[in-house]
């Protein structure tokens, strides 16, 4: 008999609604699956079966009724405040706003996920629990900071997960781990109990293995319907500079091929886009560092500590400059979205590097991942617009390649339409187990 976690989120929900699958049996099977596979994936840092069973008993008969999900360590639960990838409980013990939306739809929180420490990295390497692992190749980085979200969904521990995205932290791990990751529009959900609540960049993001599941989960998160449209008919803008520069050639070619399936693609320019990387680096660093309580820096990994310290070195004038660039980028995006429905480029500049040597091989030479990854992602956080990473193929190394699309504020549905279109003929990448 097929394990229920080999089903997608929508299939699980349908099976429960029809009476073909019992919610308690699904939860037990999920917890057993976590126990069996997590020692390899290290995607999960906490389970709480009694709380999960009570949540199931109290679950409303919504569209996600009885479906187990996992959540990032940036979201509070009534029995566990968020730790944000540290050993300390940093948030209140409350059902955080984004998780509440999913619970109100009937979902059951089965576990809390591993993540990159304090959200300050794109690899997943820095974690007091050790790094989560890439579900396609356990020796490689899953991406971050929502490393456990991508690993848990790609590794079939659960069919859906809730992560977050302050500088690409949903889209980047989704791209490296071969799953869909969708960052919603900034402020589209209640932020209480969420570590991103004081950020002007952070937004929750959903992880799923296919576009139908991503749509179901996003609808629940946004508490509104997202009716499907014709993804193939979308007008797609390709922004070459800087997002298609210095890429692994196979990544570029695979993403180009995927975009070639759309009927209307055209090149557009965003004049200030190249400055979005330093502007985003300043904003991300300063905002994340400002939220770290006193004393936490003494316990974190040396690389996290260095990023925290570096953020303290920015002169105030630089923040003003960053915000002027942010304003320019937002205006340029508004203009772009009068011409096209979505804009597109590769999610990550190169496939996931090995955990043992986390360096990207780019045409310009070897590079630490955070800078090039941030370049691809942070413009969406500066602007506040939604974005998605969609698996579009495999590199010759066997690692996944993701295509990123951004849409106007509140237009998550067109990103899902594009995902429907792109995934129509595709097989998902194989999980490592």
């Amino acid at each position, binding site marked *: 008999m097929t394990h229920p976690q080999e089903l997608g989120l929508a299939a699980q929900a349908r099976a429960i609604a029809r009476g073909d699958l019992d919610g308690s049996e699904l939860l037990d099977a999920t917890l057993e699956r976590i126990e069996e596979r997590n020692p390899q994936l290290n995607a999960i840092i906490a389970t709480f079966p009694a709380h999960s069973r009570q949540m199931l008993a109290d679950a409303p008969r919504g569209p996600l009724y009885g479906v187990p999900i996992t959540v990032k360590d940036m979201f509070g639960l009534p029995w566990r405040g968020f730790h944000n990838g540290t050993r300390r409980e940093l948030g209140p013990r409350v059902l955080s706003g984004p998780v509440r939306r999913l619970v109100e739809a009937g979902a059951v929180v089965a576990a809390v996920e591993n993540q990159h420490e304090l959200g300050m990295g794109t690899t997943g390497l820095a974690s007091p629990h050790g790094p989560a692992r890439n579900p396609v190749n356990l020796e490689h980085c899953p991406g971050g900071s929502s490393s456990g979200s991508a690993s848990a969904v790609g590794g079939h521990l659960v069919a859906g997960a809730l992560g977050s995205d302050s500088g690409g932290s949903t889209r980047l791990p989704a791209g490296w781990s071969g799953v869909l990751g969708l960052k919603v529009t900034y402020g589209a959900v209640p932020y209480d109990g969420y570590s991103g609540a004081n950020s002007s960049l952070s937004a929750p993001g959903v992880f799923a293995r296919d576009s139908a599941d991503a749509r179901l989960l996003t609808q629940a998160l946004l508490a509104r319907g997202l009716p499907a449209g014709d993804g193939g008919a979308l007008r797609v803008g390709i922004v070459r500079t800087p997002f298609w520069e210095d890429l692994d050639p196979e990544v570029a070619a695979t993403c180009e091929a995927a975009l070639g399936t759309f009927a209307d693609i055209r090149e557009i320019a965003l004049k200030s886009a190249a400055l979005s990387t330093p502007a985003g680096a*300043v904003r991300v660093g300063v905002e994340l560092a400002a939220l770290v309580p006193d004393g936490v820096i003494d316990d974190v990994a040396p690389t996290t500590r*260095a990023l925290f*310290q570096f953020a*303290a070195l920015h002169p105030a004038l630089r923040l003003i400059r*960053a915000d*002027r660039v*942010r304003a320019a980028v937002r205006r340029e995006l*508004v203009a772009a979205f009068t011409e096209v429905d979505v804009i597109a480029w590769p999610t990550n500049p190169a496939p996931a590097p090995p955990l043992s040597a986390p360096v990207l091989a780019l045409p310009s030479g070897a590079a630490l991942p955070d800078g090039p990854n941030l370049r691809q992602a942070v413009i969406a956080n500066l602007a506040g617009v939604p974005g998605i990473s969609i698996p579009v193929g495999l590199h010759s190394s066997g690692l996944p390649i993701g295509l990123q699309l951004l849409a106007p504020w509140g237009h998550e549905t067109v990103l899902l339409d594009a995902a429907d279109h792109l995934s129509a003929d595709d097989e998902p990448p194989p999980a490592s187990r």
Partner: protein
Amino acid sequence: MTEFAVVARAMLADAGLPCTSDDLQLLTVVAQVLGPGLAALDAIDVRLFAPEHDLDPARAPR
């Protein structure tokens, strides 16, 4: 000690943040990685970049 290290140590001390020699080595790497981009940002003519006084990332600019 490099000029960057001297400045970094002094600024962090002024902010009441600890900074070891190991920290300085990693900070130097971070500065090397982010430096060119930050230099480009520092070089912009702010007068050419209009502010958005009611910037709200939840919606498009008015």
